[in-house]
């Protein structure tokens, strides 16, 4: 049971990191970023490239990969999303779909389709860590949980306390008033994209260190999309219970039910949520109506 709980927390942490990316972009700009899974993959490949460039130097490679991920978010906004201002939202969503396809192709072109393991070049190992109650997790399982926890604490503090965070919330919640107050919308949107890509990149960095890195990791983004919708697309706080719920159902279906259900369980959760509470666990009803 303890092992099941530990695994649930690891999977939930992965989904929470990815889910945060969806929510951050949506809250700020009302755009569904369907390339979030590809930003995860890209983060992993940034780590692989950084580790190859600076072998045996994780203190350089890990922050460099995270920084490149955030920078990618800014570039995506400046090059692709900013020109979409004034166009219907669905056009911007289609741009994110295209972005995902292009990123996948670019990754195969640059890094090939081979499975990679960045830890080899980082000179790090991933030994098992026994937990109380007989459970065992890997070191990077613990890193995944710690990363998600730290990111969410930092995001909450940033959005609640920092002037820039408050501007982000204002731009998302009352865009007209915010614009009249002189908030720099493009700066806020670029920051939202940077944070989303950073969160996705962190997920990719830790996942590729723990499991594997290959161009097809973007499928994880689809599962996390269900998490973001279950939590409420405009609610960062909703991501956490939604991630735990979806991960728990997935892990429990493998352990005590039919393992094949695990593949569809995030979408079953989503379906149930859409039937009983379409705006998600912590989303706002008005927001849904506006959409």
């Amino acid at each position, binding site marked *: 049971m303890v*092992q*099941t709980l530990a*695994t649930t927390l*690891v*999977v939930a942490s*992965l*989904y929470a990191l990815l889910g945060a990316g969806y929510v951050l972009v949506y809250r700020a700009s009302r755009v569904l970023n369907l390339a979030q899974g590809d930003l995860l993959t890209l983060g992993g490949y940034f780590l692989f490239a950084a580790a190859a460039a600076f072998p045996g130097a994780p203190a350089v490679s890990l922050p460099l990969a995270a920084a490149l991920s955030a920078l990618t978010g800014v570039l995506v906004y400046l090059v692709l999303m900013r020109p979409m201002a004034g166009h219907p939202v669905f056009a911007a969503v289609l741009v994110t779909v295209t972005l995902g396809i292009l990123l996948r192709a670019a990754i*195969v072109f640059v890094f*090939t*389709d*081979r*499975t990679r*393991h960045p830890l*080899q070049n980082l000179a790090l190992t*991933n030994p*098992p860590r*026994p937990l109380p109650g007989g*459970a*065992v*997790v*890997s070191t990077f*399982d613990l890193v995944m949980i710690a990363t998600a926890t730290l990111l969410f604490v930092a995001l909450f503090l940033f959005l609640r306390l920092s002037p820039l965070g408050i501007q982000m919330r204002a731009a998302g919640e009352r865009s007209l008033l915010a614009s009249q107050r002189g908030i720099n919308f493009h700066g806020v949107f670029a920051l939202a994209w940077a944070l989303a890509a950073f969160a996705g990149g962190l997920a990719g960095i830790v996942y590729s260190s723990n*499991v*594997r890195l*290959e*161009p*097809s990791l973007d*499928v*994880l983004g689809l*599962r996390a999309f269900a998490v973001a919708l279950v939590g409420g697309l405009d609610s960062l706080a909703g991501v956490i219970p939604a991630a735990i719920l979806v991960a728990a159902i*997935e*892990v429990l279906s*493998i*352990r005590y039910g039919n*393992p*094949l259900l*695990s*593949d569809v369980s995030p979408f079953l959760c989503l379906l149930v949520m859409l039937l009983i509470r379409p705006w998600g666990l912590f989303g706002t009803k008005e927001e849904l109506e506006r959409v």
Partner: protein
Amino acid sequence: MRRPVLIAALGVLTLAGALPAPAQAPEPYRIGMTAAITGRFSAGYAPTYEAYRAYFKRVNDAGGINGHPIEITYEDDRGEPQRAAAAAKKFTEGPFILMINASISPTYKPVMTEAETVKVPLLFGGGVCPREAFPPAHPLIFCSTSYGSKWDSRMALNFIKSQSAGRKVKVGFAAQDIPLSRIELEFAEQLAKELGMDAIPVVVVPGAASDFTPFAQNLKDAGADWVFSWAPWGVEIGVFEALHRIGWKGNYILYGHQQAQDELTRLKTPNLHALTGNAMFTENLPIHAEITSLVKGQTNHPPHYMAEGWTSAMVLDAGLRKCGWPCSREKLAQALAAVNVDTKGLRGGPIEMTAENHYRRETYYKIYRWDTDKSAIVSVGGWQKLDIK
């Protein structure tokens, strides 16, 4: 003035008629290949395409076969059945004398249907061999790939039995949620029981699983001493690594796809065994050096990924030589059904096909693992043979 010009023109025309006509390029052997060159599954199949290109470039540079070049048209099916069907349609409607499939198993059926309809021989050169190549073979279906369903399980379970030294072992099975993998491991589960082992029901793993730990936990909780996995590489190695992470101390045997050599070296765990039909390039055979030097600069993959495609190209080469010129579809099918290919050590023995057996009369396996003392990959017991009947 006019007369000399006329005479000169007549002279030129006469001379031109006397000269031999410019040499026409010999007509090629036209072959069509549908392969997962890109897409989610390309890692396992693109190397076959690359090996074919390198192999037949060398053959063509040396003058071709029977004086005719080999022209292979490659279609990227991305591992999608509908694309493979479209490629097969194109090949069967064109002047192609053979189709090659180097793609995932869901592409088999549409390509086989097309081959059957128009009576084009079909050679499987990248994915698992379909049962239609085994005795009694379908007249048009051939397979050069090192792995074949049922035979691989027999060898893996024989190995587990031989390693258990008379002790009753409990064996678990990790399949992927694709029909071929599930059917194979359900067969293995039954076979394990017949061999006197305790068989744990097959654990089926979705290929896109976000975490393999719960699946591994099921195998660990069931008390598996050994786990056998026969699936695409991601699931095979993913379940092993998850078992390793949660502290499982048993032995694991998987089918050694092209990635196995890299992964045995990376993981350095002596309880991971790779069952394979190809000699690993760590053995440094002359054929390995030959392939390595020939594909240099022509592939995105390491040379040892080429073994499967290279062997397949050798089979096609032998078939075309036997077929002669002109070579029709029917004649090539007959020629392939009688090839006896010296694999130069890439495999444990020759690939010998017969009218009834389009797989091979004898198949050979090696089992490799990491030896901590030697800090190297070693084979456990050398080549082992199975008669295909």
